[in-house]
């Protein structure tokens, strides 16, 4: 009962934050609502027993990426942008396509929920290793090569963003 209550609270946070993110005029307000949405998603991670990702979500997404967004929004003067038209001319095509895709997903979820026959949820092992330990075990053994590739990707991103933000390119 309790986890259902928390699921709906966090789901409401996530969806309401997302809707407000894409409808606000000011980019700073949108960033604030995106933080609310990310907090809701972090709560859902906690409900799913992914404690490590919960911490990563808050430290990295909210503390890192969103701060980066806010700094760049500050850097770029947006005063006149919030007074302009906010949606482009094709918004109704986008909405129609979206409704079609939404109906498709709803159909597949409705038929798939019964026919897919997901195996019953695995029972949690009490007293076993914690979530962070399990993630680290898998990450540093089975996914070692992707892990190293990800570090190269981050290096490329650092060099690329420094290059792009330089005075003269």
């Amino acid at each position, binding site marked *: 009962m309790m986890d259902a209550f928390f699921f709906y609270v966090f789901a409401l946070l996530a969806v309401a934050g997302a*809707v407000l993110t894409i409808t606000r005029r000011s980019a700073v307000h949108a960033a604030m609502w995106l933080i609310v*949405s990310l907090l809701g998603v972090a709560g859902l991670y906690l409900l799913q027993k992914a404690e490590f990702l919960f911490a990563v979500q808050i430290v990295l997404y909210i503390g890192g990426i969103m701060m980066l967004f806010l700094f760049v929004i500050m850097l770029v003067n947006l005063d006149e942008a919030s007074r302009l038209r906010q949606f482009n001319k094709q*918004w109704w095509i986008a909405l129609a396509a979206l409704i079609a895709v*939404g109906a498709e997903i709803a159909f597949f979820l409705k038929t798939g929920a019964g026919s897919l026959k997901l195996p019953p949820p695995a029972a949690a092992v009490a007293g076993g290793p914690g979530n962070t330990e399990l993630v680290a075990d898998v990450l540093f053994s089975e996914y070692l090569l992707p892990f190293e590739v990800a570090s190269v990707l981050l290096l490329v991103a650092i060099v690329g963003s420094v290059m792009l933000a330089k005075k003269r390119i």
Partner: protein
Amino acid sequence: MLYPITTIHYLVLSAALLLIGTLGVLARRNIFIILMSIELILNAVNINLIAFSHHYGQVHGQVFAIFVITVAVAEAAVGLGIVIALFRNKETVQADEIDLLKW
């Protein structure tokens, strides 16, 4: 239907976030909000991965989510760098005013 929370509930929520994020990418003009909508889409994918990871009682989905977050960080950093360079050259953050490749 509403009460025992199953994996399907998480899938529905993830689909809703994905659609909202896609609408933001397709319909908004402000580049910052387009970038934020991409973050929303990646979060929807992560919810899906975590839901299945929890469902099967394995952590492979969580490892994948970590990689998705890594790619999101790289994308945000490079994307914001591009926005700064673009603003310096064209003095606009409206995506449909940057139409050099359109004819």
